[in-house]
């Protein structure tokens, strides 16, 4: 430990500590510009000057990169320090008059106008090089550097051209203390819509606000470390040392007694209906994107805005996109009507002056309190138009349609084809089986119904069981359903699984095969046929024996047995023969 005195106060600090850090511990504030705790100090701005006295010799040093020495005495605000600092700030102000932190410092020091000539009143860069060091040390891209000398000195990529080494991480802009480096969003807009980048803002983040477990993860696609092998700033700031960049996906084998499948659904891709213009017309968005938009933690902070940042004056909500349509999915997705009504209500709440049109085939308000909600919306003035939307276009036929999205629809209640100009269209996309449902069905040996959702064992008597024992279904993997239904089904599935575990014993189907000792000739045809290795050959007795616990009762061995020694309980040859005789009597 090293003893130093700062402004008359004694302190003990570890060896290698800089004066700036030591002063920080004493709550003594030293102004800085080019200092950043995560980057090696470089002492470019020279604002952090202090007076250090060692062995009777006093010197002006930069506190950010000077390490303390035993017995050092430091003055952070002596007249000499203040004067030198003032001069430095004055020179910085002359160089970068538009830089806000410099202006602030100058104001604090009572500098109105620098005595030195100003070259560029718009200049913000103080040439501290923090950006250059960030790009090199943190990002590891080395895309920018100082070029030229003297008054021509500036920061730029090689030859002032867009650099191939730049990975577009914008770290330089984030580290710049004066805001001299700025960056544009991809489309130069703050509003984030479907055509724009709806993705996350940082590489390390919590997936969603409601995530369980509430733990951040690293997005490898966006993380600088996985691009350049450097950065790892997050590990430096994480006090608990919880971040591990070396972690990899792993396959974990777990032995369980029962399995509940809750693999969910995927949304219908609205691009499959080209007439609706999704992906082509910027203000045609899907329900999920609207949900994102209207969320208080979303890109617009919960404001309902168009792609150009304006408030919509008319919004159309199109029901049954990809549902109840022979061309896509014949079934009703169940949830769209109600969430569309919710959207209409939200829009009315947030943009009261907006007109809302709901285009529906049938209103399916099937649950508790749902019909009442529909009536509330009718009273709120949402315009309900019964008819399937034919087309959404930006082609204006009249003056008032210009710059708007026009919804072409047959109003089946009025019996006329209408053109309705709106600013924003929300497509209530339906629910579809998840992308890998085939793979899942194969893995768990369960069946799919016609619409490719997983098939329950019985629609009424076993609605959460599958055809495989011990495998239960919950939620939208079994069919489209809303949250209350999903919760109810999931509870049922959990109870079924628990009941199975509680019993501790498992009831086998009694239809297993058996082989008569007297009749078996030991030919072993059955041994090779059994898919479950339930039949073994007893060499001593020269017969085949069925293991009851392994036999699942398919009966393929029985069908193949040439001597009739193998029989399946409840499906004996005799029984089936009698059955054939019986049904053909009439």
């Amino acid at each position: 430990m090293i003893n130093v005195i700062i402004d008359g106060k004694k302190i003990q600090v570890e060896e290698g500590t800089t004066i700036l850090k030591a002063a920080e511990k004493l709550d003594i504030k030293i102004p800085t510009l080019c200092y950043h705790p995560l980057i090696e100090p470089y002492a470019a701005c020279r604002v952090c000057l202090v007076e250090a006295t060692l062995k009777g010799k006093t010197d002006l040093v930069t506190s950010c990169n000077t390490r303390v020495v035993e017995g050092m005495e430091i003055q952070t605000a002596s007249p000499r320090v203040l004067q030198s600092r003032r001069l430095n700030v004055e020179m910085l102000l002359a160089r970068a008059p538009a830089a806000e932190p410099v202006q602030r410092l100058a104001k604090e020091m009572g500098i109105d106008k620098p005595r030195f000539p100003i070259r560029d009143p718009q200049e913000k860069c103080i040439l501290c090089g923090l950006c250059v060091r960030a790009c090199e040390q943190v990002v590891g891209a080395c895309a920018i550097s100082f070029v030229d000398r003297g008054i021509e000195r500036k920061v730029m990529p090689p030859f002032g051209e867009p650099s191939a080494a730049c990975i577009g991480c914008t770290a330089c802009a984030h580290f710049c203390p004066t805001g001299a480096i700025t960056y544009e969003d991809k489309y130069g807009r703050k509003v984030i819509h479907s055509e724009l980048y709806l993705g996350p803002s940082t590489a390390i983040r919590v997936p969603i606000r409601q995530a369980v477990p509430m733990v951040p993860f690293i997005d490898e696609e966006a993380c600088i470390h996985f691009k350049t092998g450097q950065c790892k700033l997050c590990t430096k700031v994480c006090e608990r040392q919880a971040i591990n960049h070396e972690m990899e996906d792993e396959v974990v084998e777990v032995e369980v007694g029962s399995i509940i499948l809750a693999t969910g659904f995927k949304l219908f891709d609205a691009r499959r209906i080209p007439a609706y213009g999704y992906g082509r017309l910027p203000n045609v968005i899907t329900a999920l994107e609207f949900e994102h938009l209207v969320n208080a933690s979303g890109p617009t902070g919960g404001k309902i805005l168009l792609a150009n940042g304006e408030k919509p004056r008319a919004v159309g909500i199109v029901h049954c996109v990809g549902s109840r349509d022979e061309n896509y999915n014949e079934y009703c997705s169940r949830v769209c009507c109600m969430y569309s009504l919710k959207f209409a209500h939200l829009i009315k709440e947030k943009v009261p002056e907006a007109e809302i049109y709901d285009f529906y085939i049938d209103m399916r308000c099937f649950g508790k309190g749902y019909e009442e909600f529909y009536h509330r919306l009718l009273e709120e003035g949402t315009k309900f138009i019964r008819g399937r939307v034919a087309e959404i276009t930006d082609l204006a036929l009249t003056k008032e349609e210009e710059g708007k999205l026009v919804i072409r629809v047959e109003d089946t209640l009025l019996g006329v084809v209408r053109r309705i100009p709106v600013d924003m269209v929300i497509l209530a996309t339906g629910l579809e089986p998840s992308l890998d449902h085939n793979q899942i069905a194969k893995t768990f040996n369960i069946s799919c119904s016609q619409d490719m959702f997983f098939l329950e064992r019985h629609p009424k008597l076993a609605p959460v069981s599958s055809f495989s024992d011990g495998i239960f279904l919950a939620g939208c993997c079994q069919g489209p359903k809303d949250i209350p239904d999903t919760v109810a089904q999931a509870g049922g599935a959990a109870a079924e699984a628990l009941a199975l575990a509680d019993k501790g014993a498992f009831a086998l189907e009694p239809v297993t095969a058996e082989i008569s000792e007297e009749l078996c000739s030991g030919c072993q045809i059955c041994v090779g046929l059994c898919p479950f290795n339930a039949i073994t050959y007893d060499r001593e007795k020269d017969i085949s024996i069925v293991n009851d616990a392994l036999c699942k009762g398919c009966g393929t061995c029985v069908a193949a047995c040439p001597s009739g020694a193998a029989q399946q309980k409840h499906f004996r040859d005799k029984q089936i023969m009698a059955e054939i005789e019986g049904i053909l009597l009439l």
Partner: protein
Amino acid sequence: MSNTSFEPRLVGFLCNWCSYTGADLAGTARMVYAPNIRIIRVMCSGRVDPQFVLKAFREGADGVLISGCHPGDCHYQEGNYKALRRYKLLLRLLDQLGIEKERCRLVWVSASEGARFQQIVNEFTEQIRRLGPLNFKFDGGSHE
């Protein structure tokens, strides 16, 4: 008996997991199909012994339908493939006996394909109706 009034008698061997459930679905969905088929449930199409088919013909069936899960979907991994193997051999045997091959059919119907089951039964019934009754002279010896 004129051909128009001939009602074929069909026997269907349906596997418990796919086809029987599919047929059940057709029933619960109130799909109407030819009432000519009489269904026997087996756990797996692999349980269908070729003898069952011959027995059915002997007892007066005009056609036999064997139905299992789609390839790869078998509840017992590969019972339907075993059924397919036996079916191919059985067809050769039927041919040698002088029974039209068309009278025995092996199809795949999954648990969700009630409509497919309906369609298959209707088609098969029509096909057998066109073939006419099975005029096979058994030698009179009794089974077993």
